[in-house]
């Protein structure tokens, strides 16, 4: 991990979220710094997606505080600094009239402003994002005709086109085959290592990337942060608490 700057990307203090009488998240506090690579695991209904939605201002917390780049959520305007790939990203409407390039260009919309057309910088960023995700040869294809793995790369290219400081991905491997998943994790690690993009993502298959991640957040209403994921992942305790097959994780990556 790189040297910690003064201002964290996310600063979460005593965050709680309640739906009617049910407490979904309780007293959650953490900080995320530039250059980190963080995975979030936990059982279904444990609050993983809710936490991400709160960070993205898609839900309002019951109590507590969230700061992004040192600013309160309501004062934060530079949302293009955050690239988001939602859970259902690969489940696209097949009849939607969009080529791969149309989708990746969406990543520049918020940066361009209302009256601006595509500048040469915009075109360059779109091209770079497609090149990084290895989808340049697909740019004129309709997104509905692509495989799950290809769609996944298109959605990440869209997020990358806005030159984000952090990529947030919610179970990005839904509907993606194993080979594409492996390739995807290699891409994420590369983006983190070479582009210094902070990565925060929810996953069920933590074993596949155990070697690469810096920190692991386990969420089941409360958050437990593990700074040495490989150690924690070898514990049967994780399997018991979070319903994840954590045994033999150290060797899991090499089995594929």
């Amino acid at each position, binding site marked *: 991990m790189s040297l910690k700057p003064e201002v964290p990307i996310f600063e979460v203090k005593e965050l709680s979220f309640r739906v009617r009488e049910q407490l979904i998240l309780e007293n959650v506090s953490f900080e995320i710094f530039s250059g980190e690579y963080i995975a979030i695991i936990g059982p279904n209904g444990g609050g993983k997606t809710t936490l991400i939605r709160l960070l*993205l*201002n*898609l839900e309002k917390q019951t109590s507590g505080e969230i700061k992004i780049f040192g600013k309160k959520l309501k004062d934060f*305007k*530079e*949302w*293009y600094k*955050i690239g*988001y790939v*939602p859970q259902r990203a690969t489940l696209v409407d097949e*009849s*939607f*009239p*969009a*080529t791969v*390039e*149309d*989708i990746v*260009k*969406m*990543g520049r*919309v*918020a940066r*361009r402003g*209302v*009256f601006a057309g595509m500048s040469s910088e915009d075109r360059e960023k779109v091209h770079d994002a497609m090149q990084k995700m290895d989808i340049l040869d697909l740019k004129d294809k*309709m997104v*509905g005709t692509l495989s799950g793995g290809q769609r996944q790369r298109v959605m990440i290219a*869209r997020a990358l086109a*806005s030159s984000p400081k952090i990529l947030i991905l919610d179970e990005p491997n839904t509907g993606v085959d194993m080979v594409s998943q492996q390739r995807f994790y290699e891409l994420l690690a590369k983006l983190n290592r070479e582009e210094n993009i902070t990565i925060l993502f929810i996953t069920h298959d933590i074993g596949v990337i155990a070697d690469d991640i810096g920190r692991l957040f386990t969420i089941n209403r409360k958050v437990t942060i593990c700074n040495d994921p490989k150690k924690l992942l070898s514990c049967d305790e994780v399997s018991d608490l979070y319903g994840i097959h954590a045994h033999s994780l150290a060797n899991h990556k090499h089995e594929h």
Partner: protein
Amino acid sequence: MFEMLSYDFMQRAFIAGLFIATLASISGTFVVLKRYSLMSETLAHSALVGVAVGLVAGYNPLWVAVVVSILSAWLIEYLRSSFSIYSDAVLSIMLSGSLALAVIIVSLGGAFNNSLFSYLFGSILSVSDTDVYTIVVFGSISLAFLLLFSKELYFIAYDEEVAKTSGIKVKFLNFLLVTVVAIIIALSIRVVGSLLIGALMVIPTVAALQYRVGFRNTMFIALFFALFSVIFGMSLSYYFSLPSGATIVLSVIAIFIISLVINRK
């Protein structure tokens, strides 16, 4: 074809019709992609309430229709964003409620006559100079807004949540879209009729979607289909003395069926 254009009323109808085809098809692309198709039907029926009030109270029905339609659009968008699970039910209630209200107003006011009939199904004979000016001026403003925000509206149509997280003012733009659609619908009912304008908005885009091309090309194909339908439909209306809205809508449905057949996998 050119003989009918020697009449002033046909020139007015064609100018208004071609403008409406442009407005309906371009706004219709966003309406369909956002799955707002039922909303356009509902707004068309709400506009009829405005027509009814205008006819009974002696105001210009087109103007009152614009105001009522915009108010309905805002109410629908508010209810849709607040109670998203039941949004289609809300639209159904407003659709039938608006029609019932319009009929009652007109009946009580004693204005249930050909005038209302022409607003229900469209009439090329009834397009006045004032109607043409109103359609061209307000239609141009509405079109300008649509084109200005087209990249944002397209993003929202594809993925509203991701658009929001990237900093796009989704709520404002959704209200803007329904406002523009409400204006276009109200402007269109003279030529196409309130019961049929929803079809002119939705069907050209649905037909264009069959060709599986990108966003820009889909919009151009929808525009072409709408323009063709209006020219063909109004010509049929002139030569066979049929209601213009019905002939236009049947023309666009024929295009949709042909598109469906030739693009079958």
